[in-house]
């Protein structure tokens, strides 16, 4: 989702037609958009994938068009900030509007189609997901539908590129002859549904089928039993893949590569050219730039980020996440949010940036704010998870579990608090449960690739900065002075070694950098726990701060940052003091 912000200015030129891609949520718009434009956007199997628009150029037979992927909307009235964006785009007008219809759910999609028709928009319809519809025994007479709608209707299977070339050529043809659409009589909602019913009667045949295995599985996932059992299994399996798989990748491949080949090689190389002293230490010392800039991101963090995104992308594309949201709604209500908000929170375990942007699909400001605040405060991102596993995984798995348990408790308690103090209202749950789909491997890999690439760019550079700062402050003596300054907090209150103040400096840049310096220190189990808690609750990274400012304004962003810093230091210190007290009594 974070890739959607590279908006291109859409110019109205005589030659290049402008095409809007619109439809109900989760009908396959994102897939169609990325296939048509070659742009990399992410598609997911739930409503609210597209929360801001992106534009790109599509070419066909030497002709060009600018296509804009509009956030999904249920009707021509805005109910969320994502839908507002959509309406504004629609009001700005276009040469052609491609409306994507979901063949598995034609009735509702037709209602939307008729609303567009009434507006007098120049339309072309894509009847998508016809493969899934046929599996369900739904057959649609395309020619009859075309006649009823009065505009071209092209059946498509977007993920397999079927029908898209024809769709584009019809869109170009429509753009070339404007004036084809006329404003229709505006129907009342009742009349419109009646009309939908009439059309459905003519064009759709539903064969009664026994529910397939997938349909039955999809249904059982939302039953408390066996749904909660399945949820526990899915979460355990996900954790196993990310933590276990990550450890395996590291131990078996990445650490040997770095420690046995890269580090000796670079150390020898540098030692033979540069005499002992500060410069050599900056390059290959304790926080040596040349060592840590490779070891930290690649050997420690990347495997976890990679595996996390495999799992998340898989869960997104199957349509499991909204089902989990339905199960979790009863609990989430207590936090002033609801089951539909589970998805941005889960995405937050990858990175807070797309999580915060994803809240645009939420219908109220209060929900957006609460979800964002919770993610920023207590949801560790994938990089930070990697850092935690690196720090705790070998010596004390229990502490690792404890950190995550405390994180959940804090999410819960601060949610209950925010529910009371954030003004405004939250909407209760009203979401569609999508079809349970077997993910398309091509789409899955593409999404993975976008996310990993994004991670490399977004994380690589700040991490390099972080490593450089660490090397400089450690080797020039600045760290010693800063540590003295912070001694009352870091040493006396938190019980950490003075050197750990480096975490507080680096943590501003990125969340995992607040953990990494702890790796280089010999810490006791209690210190490991306390250091991890500080890092977990510490302020959002710089990128996230930027997004918070953009989405909520400087005041809210500053309030969130300051309160997270204070909470991190206060809470972790409190735990430290409590443990010490208990230990001194025992």
């Amino acid at each position, binding site marked *: 989702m974070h890739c959607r912000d590279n908006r291109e200015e859409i110019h109205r030129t005589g030659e290049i037609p402008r095409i809007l891609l619109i439809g*109900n949520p989760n009908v396959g718009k994102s897939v169609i958009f990325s296939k048509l434009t070659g742009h990399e956007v992410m598609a997911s199997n739930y409503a609210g994938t597209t929360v801001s628009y992106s534009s790109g150029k599509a070419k066909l037979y030497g002709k060009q068009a600018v296509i804009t992927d509009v956030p999904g909307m*249920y*009707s021509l*009235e805005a*109910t969320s900030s994502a839908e507002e964006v959509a309406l504004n785009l629609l009001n700005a007008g276009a040469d052609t509007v491609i409306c994507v219809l979901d063949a*598995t*759910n034609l*009735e*509702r999609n037709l*209602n*939307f189609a008729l609303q567009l028709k009434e507006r007098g928009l120049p339309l072309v319809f894509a009847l998508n997901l016809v493969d899934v519809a046929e599996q*369900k025994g*739904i057959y649609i007479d395309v020619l009859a539908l075309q006649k009823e709608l009065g505009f071209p209707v092209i059946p498509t299977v977007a993920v397999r590129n079927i029908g898209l070339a024809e769709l584009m050529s019809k869109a170009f043809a429509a753009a070339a002859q404007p004036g084809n659409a006329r404003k229709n009589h505006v129907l009342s*909602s009742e009349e419109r*549904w009646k009309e939908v019913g009439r059309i459905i009667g003519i064009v759709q045949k*539903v064969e009664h089928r026994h529910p397939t295995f997938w349909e039955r599985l999809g*249904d059982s996932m*939302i*039953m*408390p039993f066996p749904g909660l059992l399945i949820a526990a299994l899915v979460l355990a399996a996900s954790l196993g893949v990310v933590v276990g798989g990550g450890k395996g990748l590291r131990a078996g491949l990445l650490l040997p590569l770095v420690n046995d080949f890269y580090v000796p090689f670079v150390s020898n190389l540098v030692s033979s050219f540069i005499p002992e002293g500060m410069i050599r230490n900056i390059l290959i010392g304790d926080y040596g730039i040349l060592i840590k800039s490779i070891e930290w991101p690649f050997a420690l963090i990347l495997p976890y980020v990679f595996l996390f995104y495999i799992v998340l992308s898989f869960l997104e594309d199957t349509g499991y996440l*909204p089902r989990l*949201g*339905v*199960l979790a*709604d*009863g*609990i989430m*209500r207590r936090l002033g949010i*609801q*089951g539909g908000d589970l998805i941005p929170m889960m995405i937050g375990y990858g990175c807070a940036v797309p999580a915060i942007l994803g809240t645009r699909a939420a*219908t109220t400001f209060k929900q957006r704010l609460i979800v964002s605040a919770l993610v920023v405060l207590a949801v560790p991102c994938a990089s930070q998870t990697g850092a935690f596993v690196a720090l705790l995984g070998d010596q004390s798995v229990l502490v690792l579990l404890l950190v995550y348990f405390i994180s959940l408790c804090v999410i819960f308690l601060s949610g209950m608090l925010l529910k009371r103090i954030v003004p405004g209202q939250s909407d*209760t*749950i*009203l*979401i*569609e*449960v999508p079809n349970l789909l077997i993910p398309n491997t091509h789409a899955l890999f593409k999404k993975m690739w976008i996310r990993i690439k994004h991670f490399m760019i977004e994380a690589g550079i700040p991490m390099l900065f972080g490593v450089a700062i660490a090397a400089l402050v450690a080797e020039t003596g600045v760290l010693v002075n800063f540590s003295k300054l912070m001694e009352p907090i870091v040493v006396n209150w938190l019980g950490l070694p003075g050197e750990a103040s480096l975490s507080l400096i680096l943590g501003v840049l990125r969340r995992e950098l607040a953990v990494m310096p702890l790796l280089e220190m010999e810490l006791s189990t209690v210190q490991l726990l306390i250091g991890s808690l500080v890092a977990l609750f510490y302020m959002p990274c710089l990128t996230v701060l930027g997004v918070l400012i953009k989405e909520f304004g400087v005041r809210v962003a500053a309030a969130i940052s300051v309160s997270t810093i204070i909470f991190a230091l206060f809470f972790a210190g409190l735990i430290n003091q409590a443990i010490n007290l208990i230990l001194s009594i025992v």
Partner: protein
Amino acid sequence: MSLYKIKKATNCIIESVPAHKILEALGIRKGVNVRVLIRQPFGGPVVIRVGQRDIAVSHEYAKQITVKEVV
């Protein structure tokens, strides 16, 4: 009877729906057939099947929707 009170797996017809854009857009409207698939515990939603689709509706909304059993 309110949709929230209806027994699981009973076929019903919707009699009245509060005016709400998303409810309407999701196809939850007067005269439509619905069936409750499951009622979630802890104040969670009911999941209903409308046409080909499953929709999770919070109990607040469900209580405002009235339905009639079809026999």
